[in-house]
């Protein structure tokens, strides 16, 4: 394969920058522009060692750098790699890259280093995805989960499940192929038990995707309520910005406003909406309609009431129109009235509510605790086994669907057909780590990478 090069550190000014070269000619090409101070040639260096020297291109000394050498197959990509650590100016870094490109390297495509690592069987596809996840992790929980996937916990789990499949398949094949030996016949109920066991393991992983999504994309939380209850005030308080306009005029917010925040280690996409009410104002009507649509697509609705007044029939009507499972009632302005009459709420059968003051911040801790409970991390104690990638999720879903079909058919189809259906599940599961994957799928995974990884 061609020898590729790219800048591996972020664009911008930094202490140092790293230019990475990988491929059969990585060492030869780097040598063309590098002179070690002690005269050592790169080809004589062992893997995992480095040398100080100058980058000289067209008789011009560009920078003093450190070159680290990795030798195939003991490198990230499985090929020969050199890494040039130079001073972190964008100008110097780009000049070095240009020098490499005119010495025979070609510019690496997005994710090409990691793609090569996958093609050279250094890492599995799920691991490659976790590398991507690691790069983009911007808070602790995401980093932790991506890191454990990177360490292979998830891959190991999938392998375990896959091996259970293969065990069953080989038992089935033995039953078929050694019918002239004394191989015992398999009992259907026993088989079903083994398959149900696999199914429940698949199911746990599949369910974890909802959490994976929250961790990756943030929980979509919409603040809804009648005008002037204090929605925008809460939004500004939580995002620590004055993004939403706050006035005492009902109907201030006309269009939904979005803001990403991290609350107690939970990434949240907070949406402030226009107050909902029956009105003749065209713009407000549209706003009301839009708020309802946002409520539909949100993971959680914070429905805000005003503690300074009684709940209205209109509010009750709106509350009832939403899915009770994703609604949390917030009673705002506790600073004005801390003895809010809960009777009416109780009649509505609502037990889950928080009393806050968006103005001075009381009750916010309680609110974030309630949000955390809503996500129910408790059900996923094992952070090592959370699915974050949509591709992986779909693989698992398909495998499960197939498995359920197999269980369903076990008594009505003969053994060889049954084994065939089951084999398909195992094949689907192989896609998880990228074995037997069509090139296209592989490419689409790597296109999402940033260059230099």
């Amino acid at each position, binding site marked *: 394969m061609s020898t590729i090069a790219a800048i591996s550190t972020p664009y911008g000014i930094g202490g140092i920058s790293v230019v990475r070269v990988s491929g059969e000619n990585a060492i030869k090409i780097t040598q063309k522009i590098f002179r070690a101070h002690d005269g050592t040639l790169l080809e004589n260096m062992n893997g995992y060692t480095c040398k100080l020297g100058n980058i000289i291109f067209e008789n011009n000394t560009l920078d003093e750098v450190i070159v680290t050498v990795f030798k195939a197959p003991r490198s990230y990509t499985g090929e020969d790699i050199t890494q040039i650590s130079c001073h972190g100016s964008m100008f110097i870094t780009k000049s070095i890259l240009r020098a490499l490109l005119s010495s025979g390297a070609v510019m690496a495509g997005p994710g090409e280093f990691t793609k090569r690592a996958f093609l050279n069987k250094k890492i599995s596809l799920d691991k490659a995805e976790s590398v991507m996840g690691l790069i983009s992790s911007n808070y602790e929980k995401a980093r932790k989960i991506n890191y454990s996937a990177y360490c292979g916990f998830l891959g190991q789990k999938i392998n375990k499940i896959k091996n259970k499949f293969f065990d069953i398949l080989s038992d089935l094949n033995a039953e078929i192929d050694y019918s*002239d030996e004394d191989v015992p016949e398999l009992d259907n109920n026993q088989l079903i038990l083994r398959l149900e066991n696999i199914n429940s393991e698949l199911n746990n992983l599949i369910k974890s995707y909802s959490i994976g999504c929250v961790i990756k994309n943030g929980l979509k939380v919409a603040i809804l309520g009648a005008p002037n209850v204090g929605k925008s005030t809460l939004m500004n308080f939580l995002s620590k910005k004055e993004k939403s306009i706050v006035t005492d005029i009902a109907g201030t917010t006309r269009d939904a406003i979005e803001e990403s925040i991290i609350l107690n280690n939970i990434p949240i996409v907070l949406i402030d909406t226009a107050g909902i009410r029956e009105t003749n104002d065209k713009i407000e009507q549209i706003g009301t309609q839009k708020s309802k649509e946002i409520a539909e697509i949100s993971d959680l609705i914070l429905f805000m009431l005003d503690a300074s007044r009684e709940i209205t029939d209109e509010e009750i009507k709106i509350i009832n129109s939403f899915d009770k499972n994703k609604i949390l009632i917030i009673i705002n302005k506790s600073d004005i009235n801390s003895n809010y009459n809960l009777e009416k709420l109780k009649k509505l059968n609502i037990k889950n509510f928080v009393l806050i003051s968006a103005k001075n911040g009381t009750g916010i801790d309680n609110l974030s605790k309630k949000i955390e409970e809503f996500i129910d991390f408790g059900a996923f104690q094992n952070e090592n086994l959370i699915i974050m990638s949509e591709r992986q999720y779909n693989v698992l879903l398909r495998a499960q669907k197939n498995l359920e079909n197999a269980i369903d058919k076990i008594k009505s189809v003969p053994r060889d*057909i049954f084994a065939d259906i089951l084999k398909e599940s195992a094949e689907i599961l192989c896609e998880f780590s990228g074995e037997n994957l069509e090139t296209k799928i592989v490419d689409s995974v790597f296109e999402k990478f940033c260059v230099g990884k």
Partner: protein
Amino acid sequence: MEYDVAVVGAGHAGIEASLAAARLGAKTIVFSINLDSIGNCPCSPSIGGTAKGTLVREIDALGGEMAKTADVCFLHSKILNASKGPAAQSIRAQVDKNQYKIIMKHKLETQKNLHIHQCEITGMFKFNNFWILNTNLGTKYKCKAVVLATGTFLNGKIHIGDISNNSGPDGVFAAQYLTDDIQKLKINTKRFKTGTSARILKSSINFDKLEIQPGDPVVTPFSYMTENPGENKLVCHIAWTNDKTKEIILKNIETSPMYSHKIHATGPRYCPSIEDKMVRFSDKKRHQIFVEPCGIESDEIYLYGMSSSMPEEIQLKFLRTIIGFENCVITRPGYAIEYDIIDPTCIFPTLEIKNMPGLFSAGQLNGSSGYEEAAAQGLVAGINAAMHIFNKKKLILSRANSYIGTLIDDITTKGVNDPYRMLTARSEYRLFLRVDNADERLTPIGKEIGLVTDEYFEKFEKRIFLKEKEKNRIKKVFIKPSFEVNKILEDSKILPISEAVNLETFLRRPEVKYDLIQKIDKNSPDLPNSITNRVEIEIKYEGYIKRQMQQIKKLTRLEKILIPEDINYMNIINLRLEAREKLSKINPINLSQAQHVPGITPADIATLIIWIEKLKRQEV
């Protein structure tokens, strides 16, 4: 002396190879160290078995001989896995071992264009475009093509306990010289081992204490040409090992040459010796033994499942622990045999050895195990030796059309680490590679090659015509939920129908067999089982078979992309280094074979496709 084709060895591979070459018009000679051992079954006197029976059918469909001979001299025949589904089913028959040899020998003797000759081939080398073979008597043969089918004879060495001697099976001399010349040609060889069980005297067995295993009431023949195979001639029996057998074997385990490390060669994983089974499956209470007669005019009994190379007195001791064998008398002890094989990755899927035009290799010599596996390769090698002589396109069977193709692709692409046995699990397409439809898959190919006779082909076409006609007919016939119909269903313990359905839909119900249709629909034509059985399978499992056909399409697409013979993988810089090395070693003929080379990924194949396309464009 000059011949077009010389076949070295007249075992199951050599027989098919020499008959095929001669029938295709090549002047052929076949050598055997002992002409009385032509077609010998040194192990179990049986032909067929799961997947193996399908190989025999495929040999028949292509115009080979094994099926027809087995149909004439079978003693006991059974469909295996009858209830486990269409892909699992196959035929297994006990044959009269002596009869089988006599018939095969006579077929070779009377075949036009074919000479048989008793001698040992001791040397072989290339001279211009000819191969020269030397015999132990100093005679030279000059041939345009050679098929090596030497089975277990190359440097054959037999072990019983700590006694060993150079010999082939059943007292025939080993071939001690030919390996040297094979190695001189830079063809890689390896050493394998296999083993067999003792034969005991029929009159020394107490059959009253054994279970009877009868054959099928209606015998299913191997060959599509056999219309009336006749009935089973005798029954087989089943015996079991017990704790005492195990105790004796384990106590004396060190006397087995495998365990005393006298043998270093690799043995078959799939039919281990009894001492192996006792060690490896130590938690198993008992092991089954099939008690198989060797022939009508023979009182020797073969014990399937009891292969052993322990000292003779130990063999007698543990056999006598078995209920029914208390007074058994051994006629021949079991033994292990070591022999040389050719590393099959040195062979093209045509079975021609790479870089050795005109030199072919088949059978156990290629690292396979089993008569059927040997015969299958012999047939392909014989056909291609003839194609070589007549400068015609050589036959390559596909994984998508046969177990023969799968077998050859497996061994030549992946190599062998232990004797290769055919299994249904080796095929990705086993729902299509069934025992019933071997003719549909292969007879047109056999016809084109010229081995399938006109008579055979006419019968084949008629069979397919009748099958298709019946499949079409039952689409159009509806049955109604009448009292009579539901009474018949009830009698057969099948849920009644509530509305009119056509017979095709009805046949898809898992519990419905074709014979029920015959009962309900009085207008059903009178068709033989071989056709109704196929109608039933093809309709009942249509969806599943279709899925495999889809996969087959993908494979066929790759098979059609040929790799230029002079390709230099080292020049394909876009290919991973590992892939370049592996592909250079195997030198696959098309992308399907390339795809199966261990370590090659779909991404490598995609790179190759682009490279080959580019080459093609440059040529234009």
